[in-house]
């Protein structure tokens, strides 16, 4: 991380003058309570405001930011110039930085961060906002995919709840990538906090405003995502920003079933039903999570195979090889997949199953010297249908070749199907499955790339690995 500190003597002088002038005109009453932190609203007007630093993100083009005195709003000073690199630029893959004032500022008297921006071409700033301090980012705010044009235009990033920002360090941050293969330049000026008085009609949301339901178990955790705050601005248009969990006050309707932390992590602690909701500055957020917990479940048996004899795809007992995804969301698939953590054991929870594919093609698994695929599953809703596991070798051509009508492998792919019958499944008990790597893949298992589950049960998956 590159750490540059930039002072603008002129800005400091201006601030000094402003203080002197205002102190001539004001008389303070005996009731005045002094703020602990300065409430300077300016971030970058004609130059840096006092105390502001520039810290680019790791991996970004470190010198993407410069002060430009040629392009600016107004007759004097300078603007902030950002040069987004081309794809493949060795100096960095994107432009991005934070601009903190590590002394902290009291922003409670403002309702928005505003600025003027223009770009060398119509383009998108992927993320732009405030509250990023390379620390806890407690009050992080991001306006995602802000489209800017080639003309200077004023933009407004509303503060989800100004009363929280009593000592904010993260004055401004951004991240932007190339448009297509080519980079571009954009400028920001007159960057400051304002009390607009027109930021109104707050409509917070969690889970993107959706009322979600989950069947779960003791020890399972969920992270509340899709946290946003939406305001109507003076333009009459809505503006939505992504807001950090700390702006919200989360609540569980039944703390004997599920508890929720101030950071929005839900932990299931008992059997029954609980609904998680949230408030932001006293306004009820749209969206919720209703958990139906079946209480305690046992964890899967701990694997006993020696580390040297295992290629693991998903297990806490081993180091896992790269997996592209645990749900390919193939056309026609209804299957949903959730990450569940019970007592530090990571599980995949598959629901609404018809079929679902796991792929691991980067790189493929060479199981020539391995004899079995192992997995542990647990379900609470066994049915009269078979549960099938398909293991696919994609051959030497580097792609999976599947008959789109039958799902069968096309040459040069090879596949085996292993069937678990309903009689083998007991609700609420872990079933350990060991599949011999024989049959069609007995002599071609050096490019294993896919595992498919077919059936209609909801199940937990753990310890998915190849072994000798």
């Amino acid at each position, binding site marked *: 991380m590159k750490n540059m500190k930039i002072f603008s003597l002129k800005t400091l002088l201006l601030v000094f003058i402003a203080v002197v002038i205002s102190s001539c005109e004001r008389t303070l009453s005996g009731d005045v309570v002094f703020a602990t932190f300065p409430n300077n609203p300016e971030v970058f007007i004609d130059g840096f405001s006092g105390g502001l630093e520039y810290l680019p993100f790791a991996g970004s083009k470190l010198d993407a930011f410069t002060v430009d005195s040629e392009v600016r709003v107004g007759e004097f000073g300078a603007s902030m110039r950002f040069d987004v690199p081309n794809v493949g630029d060795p100096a960095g893959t994107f432009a991005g930085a934070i601009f903190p004032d590590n002394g902290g500022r009291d922003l409670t008297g403002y309702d928005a961060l505003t600025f003027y921006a223009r770009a060398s071409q119509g383009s998108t700033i992927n993320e732009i906002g405030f509250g990023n301090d390379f620390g806890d980012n407690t009050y992080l705010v991001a306006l995602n995919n802000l489209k800017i044009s080639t003309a200077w235009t004023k933009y407004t990033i509303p503060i989800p709840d100004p009363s929280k920002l009593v000592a904010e360090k993260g004055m401004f941050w951004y991240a932007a990538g190339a448009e297509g293969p080519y980079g571009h330049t954009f400028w920001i000026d007159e960057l400051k906090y304002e*009390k*607009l*008085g*027109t930021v*109104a*009609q707050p*409509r917070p949301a969690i889970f993107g405003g959706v009322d979600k339901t989950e069947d779960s178990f003791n020890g399972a955790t969920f992270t509340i995502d899709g946290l946003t705050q939406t305001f*109507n601005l*003076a333009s*009459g*248009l*809505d503006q939505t920003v992504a807001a950090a969990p700390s702006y919200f006050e989360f609540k569980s309707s039944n703390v004997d079933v599920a508890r929720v932390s101030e950071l929005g992590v839900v932990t299931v602690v008992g059997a029954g039903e609980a609904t998680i909701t949230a408030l932001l500055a006293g306004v009820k957020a749209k969206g919720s999570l209703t958990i139906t917990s079946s209480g305690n479940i046992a964890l899967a048996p701990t694997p006993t195979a020696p580390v040297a004899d295992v290629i693991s795809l998903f297990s806490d007992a081993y180091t896992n090889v790269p997996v592209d995804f645990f749900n390919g969301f193939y056309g026609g698939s209804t299957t949903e997949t959730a990450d569940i953590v019970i007592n530090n054991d990571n599980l995949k929870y598959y629901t609404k199953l018809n079929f679902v594919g796991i792929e691991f093609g980067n790189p493929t698994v060479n199981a020539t010297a391995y004899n079995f695929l192992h997995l542990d599953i647990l379900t609470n809703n066994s049915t009269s249908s078979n549960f099938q596991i398909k293991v696919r070798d994609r051959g030497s051509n580097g792609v999976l070749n599947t008959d789109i009508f039958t799902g069968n492998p096309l040459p040069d792919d090879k596949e085996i199907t292993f069937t678990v019958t309903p009689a083998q499944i007991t609700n609420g008990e872990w079933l350990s499955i060991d599949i011999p790597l024989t049959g069609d893949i007995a002599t071609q298992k050096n490019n294993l790339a896919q595992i498919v589950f077919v059936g209609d049960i909801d199940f937990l998956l753990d310890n998915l690995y190849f072994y000798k």
Partner: protein
Amino acid sequence: MKQGNTSISKAPAVLRHAFLSVTILFLAFGCGDDTQTVVTRTELVMQDEFNKDGSPSSDLWGFDIGNGSNGWGNNELQYYTDRRENVTIQSGHLIITAREESFKGSNYTSARLLTKGKFEQQYGRFEARIRLPWGQGIWPAFWMLGADIDTNPWPAAGEIDIMEFRGQEPTLILGSVHGPGYSGGEAISKSYSLTNGRFDTGFHVFGIEWGPNFVNYYVDNVLYNQITPADVTGEWVFEKPFYILINLAVGGSFVGSPNDETVFPQTMLVDYVRVYK
């Protein structure tokens, strides 16, 4: 507003009265010299503080019901009712609610109250304290029509729009007069904007002071326009009794239709209506 399209500003009126407006602004924000005021609040002759929960008093208020002719002449989308869902008094406020619902062939319901045949007056100060609704396609208004409209059809009857508001322009209201030769899109109109606020987050007083050959327009304590016979491009038809209307329209040519961002229901809260002699 009754049958109007987009109102237009009239530059000469603005220029002519710029000096007056500046003077009033100075007084309003000045040193509190009570001896000079243009705001006349003496001899209250009608008031409704909406202090009794339930339906508005039938002694004072009637209702327009239905979807009018061509959406009340403006292609408005709502069906007006007098149901509690659309109009009620609670906690000291008249609450007019626009809802998105299928009702007798319309997709929205709302309400329109009027004092026709119950309270009609020539001249005076007419004011209401209102918190406005918001969003694309939302069109509340506090306005007046000439009491002889049944025998002297609009626009000859005359119309005084004390306040009109486009939900998609939350910082701005309009005050207008319509008459023969200056109606609809040709109305004599001026807007007033809040610089650090908006009309849907708190109450504001919208008023006119109307006398022989003038109508003065106020928001809170700010006089922002005066319209006289010299400003209108036709006959001055404001020397006779008018009645009051309060309504919350949805859609129509003045505002356009609601869109995906428009939140329903929308409520217009009226704290009081007062008329001075």
